């Protein structure tokens, strides 16, 4: 591939909602020591998201905030604790028992997932050809000419000539190449939605950009709707149309990427942005804020989960869960600071 110039994202944000999640909640039960009381990791609590056709939505948050869990819930790899997922407005609930396999496959065909670690997401004992052939044939996209389909797939992810890669094993490829193969595998199903769980964080800085550009390229050419999960909020600014920020299993802020990164509303987003390394920052002299650690998800703080670390915490933050406050232009924040009567 050649060095591509990445134009700033702007322009048309389509309005067609492909995948929609409403009130997603996931609790992982944990066995508690000696007590009969059931405990759970409240990994995801009441998360709502919308993925639009031909657009990238970034999901940002620190480690353990539940980003991957959301992605897996959307991919139906975990059963939901509560909430609803709708594909083109149709609720999809994959129940257990007979018929699950077929319905799950049908869903997979439209919603595909890419994993964080390209070194781990390809089976070391199988060739690239095997991975792609399986992906094609599971979803009946094998076509008449397998070789042609394979070459097609690889060229879509800029791995050409195809036969240089087809019969290689994953360990013979570089990280970027591997992540491209993983993307090709996802594309084999011709999905409408790609759930990309930190697709570049394991990759080298110099090759990250290639993969991200590839994803954007796919979005534009195939009109995919992409969920881009990352902990690097700067890359969300560059790459995503919309950005949603998660903290401790909850969505705290969301909106247009540029707005969220330039005018963060939620104190957590502000902290996140302040903490990001910035060469342009004059010197090392910032205000002391945001000390402390992320909370336990088994026993989350009451009220706003961020309040123990929040420099602006008010009494209401300690007791009541803040709802979403619309800040205009699709920008919202879940923080009592934006209550109408607050200021």
């Amino acid at each position, binding site marked *: 591939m050649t060095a591509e110039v990445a134009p700033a994202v702007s322009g048309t944000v389509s309005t067609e909602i492909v995948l929609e999640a409403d009130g997603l909640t996931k609790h992982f039960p944990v*066995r508690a*020591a*000696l007590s009969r009381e059931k405990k759970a990791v409240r990994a995801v609590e009441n998360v709502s998201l919308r993925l639009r056709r031909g657009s990238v939505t970034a999901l940002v948050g620190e480690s353990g905030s539940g980003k991957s869990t959301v992605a897996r819930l959307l991919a139906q790899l975990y059963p939901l604790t509560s909430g609803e997922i709708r594909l083109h407005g149709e609720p999809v609930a994959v129940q257990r028992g007979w018929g699950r396999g077929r319905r799950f496959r049908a869903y997979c065909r439209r919603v595909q997932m890419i994993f964080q670690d390209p070194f781990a997401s390809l089976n070391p004992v199988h060739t690239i050809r095997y991975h792609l052939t399986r992906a094609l044939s599971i979803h009946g996209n094998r076509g008449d000419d397998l070789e042609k389909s394979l070459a097609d797939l690889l060229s879509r992810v800029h791995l050409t000539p195809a036969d240089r890669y087809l019969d290689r094993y994953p360990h013979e490829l570089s990280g970027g190449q591997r992540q491209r193969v993983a993307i090709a595998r996802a594309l084999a199903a011709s999905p409408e939605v790609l759930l990309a769980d930190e697709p570049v964080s394991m990759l080298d800085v110099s090759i990250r950009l290639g993969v991200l550009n590839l994803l954007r390229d796919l979005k534009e050419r195939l009109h995919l709707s992409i969920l881009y999960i990352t902990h690097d909020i700067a890359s969300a600014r560059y790459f995503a149309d919309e950005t949603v920020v998660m903290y401790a299993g909850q969505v705290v802020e969301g909106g247009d990427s540029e707005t969220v990164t330039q005018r963060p509303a939620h104190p957590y987003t502000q902290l996140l942005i302040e903490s990001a390394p910035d060469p342009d920052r004059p010197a090392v002299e910032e205000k002391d804020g945001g000390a402390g650690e992320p909370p336990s998800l088994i026993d989350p703080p009451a009220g706003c989960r961020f309040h123990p670390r929040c420099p602006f915490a008010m009494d209401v933050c300690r007791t009541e869960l803040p709802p979403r406050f619309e800040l205009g232009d699709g920008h919202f924040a879940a923080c009592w600071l934006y209550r109408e009567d607050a200021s």
Partner: protein
Amino acid sequence: MSYLLKRFGFYLLTAWAAVTINFFVPRMIPGDPVQALITKQRGQMTSESVRSLYVLFGLDKDESLASQYFSYLGQLLRGDLGLSFTFFPTPVAEVIGDGLPWTVGLVGITTVIGFLLGTAAGAVVGWRRGTWADSLIPVTTFVSSIPYFWLGLVAIALLTGPGSFFPASGAYAIGLVPNWDWQFIGSTVQHALLPAFTILVSSVSGWILSMRNMMVTVSSDDYVTVAHAKGLPERRVMLAYAARNALLPNVSGFALALGFIVGGTLLVEIVFSYPGLGLQLFQAVGAKDYPLLQGIFLIITLSVLLANLLADVAYLALDPRTRREG
């Protein structure tokens, strides 16, 4: 804590399974203790004895397998293991009581010594990787591949005999009465030397090998390098950082080995006529002495379970990561 409780439940289940297997297997053995006794005596006992023996052993009654099973369980709960046929009417518990101390003494102590020696040697060999110490491995592998009963027999042939320091059989000099005087203890040690040596030779290399491999693996862990970077004395790095961590996986192996003390080294006792449980088990098999067989098997299984329980506890003590607060 709940971890231990769960383990305990598992042990109970296993104990029950073992007891059940233990009950049914001997009952599927064709033949009976009376025939076995007569056959064993080969003509030294007349065929008229058959009837009297059936009466004596109480085998003349018909009872369904199920009711036998439940009365067996009942007996066990009362701690009653029944009467041995071979040593009729000695209670099985008493027979086992005669053998157990010897087995535990000989094989137990040897297993512990073997583990300590092997682990120490393995730690050194693993630490000094790339030196002459590596050549120890093929040698010990070969030695440990020799079946130990064979080794024992050769040792008996070569080292015992008239005038030799090493006795060929038994647990203590004939004529001595077990008590705690020096003569008896000395004699016990003297008799234990050869069998112990055989067990050691064949068991030590396994420990060396597994410890060495763990040492090699652990040595390249970061915290060992950090310990070097801290400028700690080599001994401390080796002991407190590498060996301490390499030891952990070996603990469960050691527990299993401890459990197999009673059952695992059967052959050593047979070869050296060492009056322990292994020898008794072997003889009980030959004599169809089910009560004894069941009793010994039960003891073996229980000791394995006990050893595992100990290992669990030891693991909890040794590895803080398995300990949970709260």
